[in-house]
């Protein structure tokens, strides 16, 4: 019976972090909705049946099964959960290991922070899945991970089960450090040109190819019965690159200019690997045919430009033009804020390039799912897929749409109505804490004013904080 206590404690801890639903309801029924399926048109007055976190039926059935939790979405719109193909939320500390030019040994998955409030903020903007990338400080950066925005769950429950891991590459101004120097007290780092960026990548893959050969030879001889073998020494830097060569890890490459895009495609051909996505790819429209032929996807911004010289030829027609030439294109955020309105950003492809509403919607749902190799699981409202859904009060491609509910695996992780209802109580609690601190500060002051308590203190050393100053919370964002 001694065992029971730890179990109870663990259960309590879990409850304390519990998201809106303490348990996944087995059966959920969304009814009376306008359903934008992405793959098979729009269903008016439609319903979605969710069973054990998966979409079990989509149609116009108006009757919920017995025992189902019913969500009435009359007058509302349902779309697949938004997938952000370029995000840095949920990361504890810096996203850049900028010391070496090749930092493939580090992994963003090791530093996931499930308590980052930006997870919740993005969830409230309809994002259900995000590609969490290392920064762009090096030609070959760290390993990356796809997560679901399961707010309230522990770090190990965030990763998207079965999604192939990735690695960040970066070309152009950032890895050559054009716009900011090395951290104070550290020397300049090679490379400083696009020429050097290519060389760093090629050199790393020459090493990786050799390392792979050592491993392959070892395995071959071992399986041939040779027992007197010393295995090759493990190299954590080269292992992820071998996985790239074997097609077990996706390359997500930060890039801007057309020339550097073609450079990486040449290097990829030389070593026999694939670039899974070009990220930012703001000049992708200039070499869209080459990108399309390579099979790489393009994940871009809606309308960012002119923040640096390699973004001066960026155009808001980029997404539409790449798509027109056969590239699978997504619109991403690269920002916890931008992720809150990716639906609006996708809608810009209707203005710039005149894509259809469904094509625009694909830019933040099915297309990024394809790019991340998870389109068998998410990205559209189809039977068998994960019940990752967003319910909006208006046409989701309208500026007037506000996400009302966001579901992941059939579970409501964001509910605007409940969020609004919870605010007075939270405000009260916050005020109580502030008052308590203020009172404590006053007590301390009174205490200090007794002469015997401060014989060797200067009188101005112990100013009590003004109300509102001491109780300040740590600022969010700004990474």
């Amino acid at each position, binding site marked *: 019976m001694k065992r029971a206590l730890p179990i109870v404690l663990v259960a309590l801890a879990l409850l304390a972090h519990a998201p809106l639903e303490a348990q996944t309801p087995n059966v959920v029924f969304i009814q009376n909705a306008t359903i934008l399926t992405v793959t098979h048109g729009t269903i008016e007055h439609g319903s979605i049946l969710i069973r054990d976190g998966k979409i079990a039926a989509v149609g116009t059935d108006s009757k919920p099964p017995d025992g189902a939790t019913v969500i009435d979405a009359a007058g509302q719109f349902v779309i697949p959960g938004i997938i952000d193909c370029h995000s840095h939320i949920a990361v504890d500390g810096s996203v850049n290991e900028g010391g070496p030019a090749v930092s493939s040994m580090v992994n963003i998955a090791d530093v996931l922070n499930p308590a980052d409030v930006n997870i919740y903020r993005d969830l409230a903007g309809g994002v259900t899945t995000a590609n969490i990338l290392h920064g762009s400080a090096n030609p070959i950066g760290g390993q990356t991970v796809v997560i679901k925005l399961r707010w309230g769950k522990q770090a190990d429950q965030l990763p998207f089960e079965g999604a192939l891991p990735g690695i960040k590459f970066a070309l152009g101004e950032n890895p050559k450090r054009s716009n900011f120097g090395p951290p104070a007290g550290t020397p300049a780092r090679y490379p400083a040109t696009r020429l050097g960026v290519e060389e760093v990548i090629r050199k790393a893959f020459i090493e990786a190819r050799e390392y792979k050969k050592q491993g392959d030879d070892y395995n071959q001889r071992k399986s041939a019965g040779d027992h007197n073998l010393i295995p090759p020494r493990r190299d954590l830097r080269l292992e992820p690159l071998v996985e790239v060569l074997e097609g077990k890890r996706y390359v997500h490459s930060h890039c801007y200019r057309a020339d550097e895009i073609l450079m990486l495609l040449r290097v990829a051909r030389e070593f026999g690997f694939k670039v899974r996505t070009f990220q930012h790819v703001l000049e992708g429209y200039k070499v869209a045919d080459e990108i399309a032929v390579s099979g790489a996807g393009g994940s871009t911004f809606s309308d960012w430009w002119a923040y640096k010289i390699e973004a001066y030829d960026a155009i808001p027609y980029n997404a539409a033009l790449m798509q027109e030439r056969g590239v699978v294109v997504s619109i991403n955020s690269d920002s916890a804020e931008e992720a809150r309105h990716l639906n609006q950003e996708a809608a810009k492809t209707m203005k710039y390039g005149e894509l259809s509403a469904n094509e625009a919607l694909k830019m933040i749902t099915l297309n990024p799912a394809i790019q991340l190799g998870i389109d068998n699981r998410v990205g559209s409202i189809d039977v068998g897929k994960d019940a990752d859904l967003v319910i909006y009060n208006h046409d989701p491609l309208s500026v*007037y749409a506000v996400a009302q509910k966001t579901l992941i695996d059939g579970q409501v992780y964001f509910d605007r109505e409940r969020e609004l209802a919870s605010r007075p109580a939270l405000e009260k609690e916050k005020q109580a804490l502030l008052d308590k601190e203020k009172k404590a500060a006053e007590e301390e002051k009174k205490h200090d004013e007794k002469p015997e308590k401060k014989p060797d203190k200067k009188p101005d050393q112990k100013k009590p904080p003004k109300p509102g100053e001491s109780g300040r919370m740590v600022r969010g964002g700004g990474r």
Partner: protein
Amino acid sequence: MTWRMPRAIFPGPQRTKRLPGRLAPLLLVLANFLSVSAFAQSVPGVYAIQGARIYTLAGPPMEDGTLIVRDGKISSLGVHLEIPAGAQVIDAKGLEVYPGLFDPVTQLGLYEVGAVSATLDSTELGDFNPDLVAATAVNPASAHIAVTRASGITHVVAAPGAPGFEQSSGGIISGQATAYHLAGWTMEQMQIERSVALVINWPSIQLRSFDFASFSFKEKSYADAKKQYDKSVNDLSDLLDRTRHYAQAKEKGSPALYERDLKLESLVPVLEGKLPVLVIASEARDIRNAVEFCTKQNLKMILADASEAWKVKDLLKDKKIPVILGPTERLPDQEDTPYDKPMTQPAELFAAGIPIAFSSFDTAFSRRLSQYAGTAVAYGLPHDEALKAVTVNAAQMLGLGDRLGTLEPGKIANLIVTTGDPLEIRTQVRYLFINGQLTSTANRHRELYEQYRKRPQPGR
């Protein structure tokens, strides 16, 4: 081919009437050549926009209305108006007409490429530069100008200050802001008002700042931050006192009795209440301090950015201080601030009776102005108020309300003809009138799009 003549205007009889046949192609070629960023028709014309739904913002929308533009101004508007002889007629059936959008805090013309300091003229050295005026360095050929106007923004204010208007740099008084039309060959043609406000970056008590050298946040004690703040405010106060003395000396004495001082001279209109101060402040504490200071100094204050204005509504209402809001699409300032506060704040301020306007506080993102307003509507701001907050409200705050902001006879003809609601993302701007001129929507982005759309497939 980049310059695309609006189809409704140039084909047909009007074209031959207004442009002699042989001259027309030449003009088109010339227009194409010069259209990159600063092209506006140079012959002032008479235009009749016909059959549109007209949102004057000075009354209810007008169905099937006609609007006549003459000599740069709106000469008349109404239903079934007679078309003046020689007018270029724009058939706007099914389209909508609105006042041109106004972005009241930008660095348009002072900023080209963010990371290339040689292309920036927004941030001067020194803490106090009241005599610097944005108009001096606005580059009429900036690619940003044509890109921005294509989204329906017909006029802006360029304000000196740090790019992105971060409070930590750009000095305390960064200069005077200029209102100008987003079309024209020179600043002389584009200028609406050389100086509409003095920009003050309110010294914030910052305990935490981002350090680019170490790429991390640096903390500072409250005492240190307060000391720095007090010094800044004292310096500012001192400068205004010296201005008062200077004004007295100038009024009473002969020029021999005082040495001319450009900085003090430029501040005299501010103390006379003729020039408002645009005070950039975000946190509630900073806003309170700024209001207290401006009240004491008797300055005409416009609050700008103001992400925590919601915390000091009563004060702003009481002191009748209008607010130019920074982007509604930003993260909450604090971790425990409601996730939607930046979006709901405009509705909250409006309900409290505080005049508001939207602004991009940016250059490359100036074209997101209408998106910021639309988002505020999604979170509760009435639609017609949001329209006013991107047109007439800021014009009134900056003393331009008699010339711009609504569609009324006598006002400058800055207007847009759109496919629908200008706050909606997918809406297209079909025609653009700036300073009474039909102005091209061609721009660098459209040109690159057309150019690369025609790229032959490689190997074919």
